[in-house]
């Protein structure tokens, strides 16, 4: 075996290592039920849950509890399977949180509450077609 062959084998091994580690570290999109089950099974990795904020009949967001010092808050989120879940976020409320139409929380369960490490928002202005401000 030539040295160059050994070299190529090492490179390929490293590349495969990268792919495997990616697969291992990749997060996944799940529902709250699945996430809860994962947490119960002892899998503590961070996951993505997609859903929306709980709203009353008039479309007002309900269930927001701000922290006393305004630097954290909790809210109620409903995932795609209509499961309701209290989510705690360890940071101030992101701007435009209240008018988001879709929320992705990244984090995991701690007991029965979901602790989000990161919140991604989909706001209407960014995705809907702009309206003409005709002004007449």
């Amino acid at each position, binding site marked *: 075996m*030539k*040295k*160059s062959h050994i*070299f190529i084998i090492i*490179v390929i091994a*490293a*590349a495969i290592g*990268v792919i495997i*580690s*990616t697969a291992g*570290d*990749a*997060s*996944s*999109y*799940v529902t709250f039920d699945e996430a809860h089950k994962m947490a119960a099974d002892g899998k503590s*990795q*961070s*996951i*993505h849950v997609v859903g929306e904020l709980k709203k009353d009949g008039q479309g007002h967001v309900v269930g927001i*509890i*701000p*922290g*006393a*010092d*305004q*630097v*954290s*808050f*909790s809210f109620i989120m409903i995932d795609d399977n209509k499961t309701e879940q209290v989510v*705690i976020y*360890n*940071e*101030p*409320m992101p*701007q*435009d949180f209240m008018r988001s139409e879709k929320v*992705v929380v*990244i*984090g995991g369960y*701690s*007991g029965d*509450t979901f*602790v989000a*490490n*990161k919140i*991604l*928002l*989909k*706001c209407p*202005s*960014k995705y809907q*077609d*702009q*309206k*003409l*401000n*005709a*002004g*007449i």
Partner: protein
Amino acid sequence: MHYFIGHLGHLFVIISFVAAIATAFSYFKATNTSDLSLKSQWLINGRVGFYIHATAVLGICVTLFAIISNHYFEYHYAYSHSDKKLPTYYLISTFWNGQEGSFLLWMFWHAIIGIVLIYVNKFWEAPVMTVFALVQAFLASMILGVVIPGIEFKIGSSPFILLRDALPDPIFKIQPDFIPEDGTGLNPLLQNYWMVIHPPTLFLGFALTLVPFSFCIAGLWIKKYSEWIRPALPWSLVAGAILGLGILMGGYWAYETLNFGGYWNWDPVENAVYVPWLVLIASIHTMITYRNSGTALKASMILVIMVFVLILYSTFLTRSGVLGDASVHSFTDLGLSGQLLIYLFFFVLIAIVFTTIRWKQIPITEKETAVWSREFWIFIGATVLCLMGFQVLIPTSIPVWNRFIEAFGGSSNLAPPADQLTYYSKFQLWFALAVGLLSGVGQFFWWKKMDRKVLLNELFVPIIASLLVSVVIINVAKTYNIGYSLLLFAGLFTFFSNLKILYSVLRTSPSLSGGAVAHIGIGLMLIGIMFSSGYSRVVSLNNTGMLISKQLSEEFNRENLLLFVNEPRTMAGYDIEYAGERVEPRNKKGYVDKNDIETTPDKHMVIARRDIYIDGEKIFIKGEKFEIFGENTFYEILFSQGGKHRFTLRPRLQVNEQMGTVASPDISHAIGLDLYAHVSAPMTEEAREDWKEREEVRVKRAKEFYVNDYVAVVEKLTRLYQIGDEKIDSTFVAIQASIKVQGERKDYYFQPILILGTNSRGGIVPDEIGDLGLKISLMNVHPESDGLTLGIQTRQKNWVVIKAMEKPFVNVLWIGTLILMAGFGIALTRRFREFSKMKAKGQE
């Protein structure tokens, strides 16, 4: 309606597309014809074709810019990317704000580079320009905006589309000639000088990578397997420098404008340029090896091809909409995904076909590379760079993978790593470490014939020096993280080794010092990166002890701080005081207190409530109307360290129509340390309106009294005959009280109004100042006793939640970047001289 200019622009697009195809065909014929006279005829055809193409591209640019700068808002591009307020330099950046414009920018650079190539490389003209013209044809097709009749298939998205065709608004049914008064403007976040120069730099870098690719394909095509490297290498060097500069400009913009706390976020859009750059640098190394020792030819070919393919792939990633939710700032989907994929696969196919057909004929060196040879070490370095890129490429491609699975009917719920920053840093750290060590060791191998004894001799001084300095820094900073400490050592090692090499090279042949200088830059960059992220310290640690949920308190390490206006706080050695909200006048330098202005329905226009001074100079008089940047609010925060080192930061919050509310930091730059602060939560509307019950107090004029613990006095009562622009009816009497309240830092003036009706009910107009948390209403006047009744309401004073960080030695990163660029410059000068000599001999 200005129809002509749009038609003209569209005509230019079509000409550029057709001319590019004709050029490609002519140059193709010129390459494949052996008959010399025919060949020269085809060459002339190709050249003329490319000139026509380049002129048309210039024509597109000029017409599009004319539409923007003349504010022809009947065109969608001008309407959705610009407005009348924008100064000229931002009108220029409007040009590439849209996806079509950025394709255009890319084409423009290709056209310029193409013309340069036609002039300087006569020998390679035909095959190289064939590739160039093909690329240009694909790019032109992206902005073609032509619908194929019959199958209704749309090719490209034209920048010259009318607003009424782009936006199906009912107004166009009633009034087809409707032209909006003003455009929606350029995203204010991009109204930043870096956004004027960053995109052209980046796209020039993109464009430059096409040159080595074209030379490589040309070399395979006309069977000049090794000769192509010489003309290609200088271009790779320019590409490496420009693309690197462009990437760092983007990083610097992010550092100054976005609030994630750094210059690099491992966002897919950033990764999409980072990966090709790494491979480009690897290819430069193998090309240099080949020029010196004739090894690594095949590797050079593969890498050069990979760079361009990766550029195409990143174009696909960022523009096809495939990243969707995964990135904050990718372009919106224009429905070009199919076209982009064809573009990508076309050139992948060309590259694969050429390399497989010619693979057997490509010369290789028979001798095995020895471990003590410089080729071996450089090759290892290039490999590490490629793996480094590969590690970023794979997770970034997860959305593509999901799409791919879905295309075959499967489903994949794979998401990108939850915490990108930690995830990528975790891996990239070790690659960076290897790069650091290799660029020290490799350089010694490059310059000297090595064996064990010489190597140890050479390495002794740099290793000792870097060890000493590392130990000192680690102990001073008291950060004992293994990874960061090793990276620090690696950076210092590169720095010292190359300093040593630079010293000896400068004495013998200064023109060859490019490599040493560039690697010194790399060493400094590694040190800067390690410092700014590894030793970054959150200053605003929450020490209030107020928690939202007791059960989680262990994990809660909150890094944000609630500040009330005019209430000093001390933390991490800093005295911090929030001074209130400020706005920025459009035509005057400085900032104005929001308490001193009255808003109008136009968010960009305000009225001064009192004489306004900036730095002791009166700039607005009471009642004056003036223009401000209405979308921005600045939160003035005063910092000092025990009374010394005073500075003021004004982090910004921008109500951005396209992106929602965006927080931008403000940074205090010092030589050794940047202090970085941004707003993490502004006061909510609910908190602003959370007034307590009104209390009535009876006070006397000109006599001091207390409101909410502040000393106040009613200075005078005035009868008003008009309020704002409204005249007051003679059946009403309006009285305004002027009340001075002494705040912590300055006096505030309340001007509540009482309206009394003689035969109908009047009303009260209260006045509020958020900095004091006070709202005062004039309830009644008692002329008989010279007294008056005031209604007092209180709420919490204005507040803001901020996050502040110390970033030590970020400057080392920027300095390292500049030195790296200087290294590229020296290397380039050398290659250019070489090229001039060859040209003089008639060999290029």
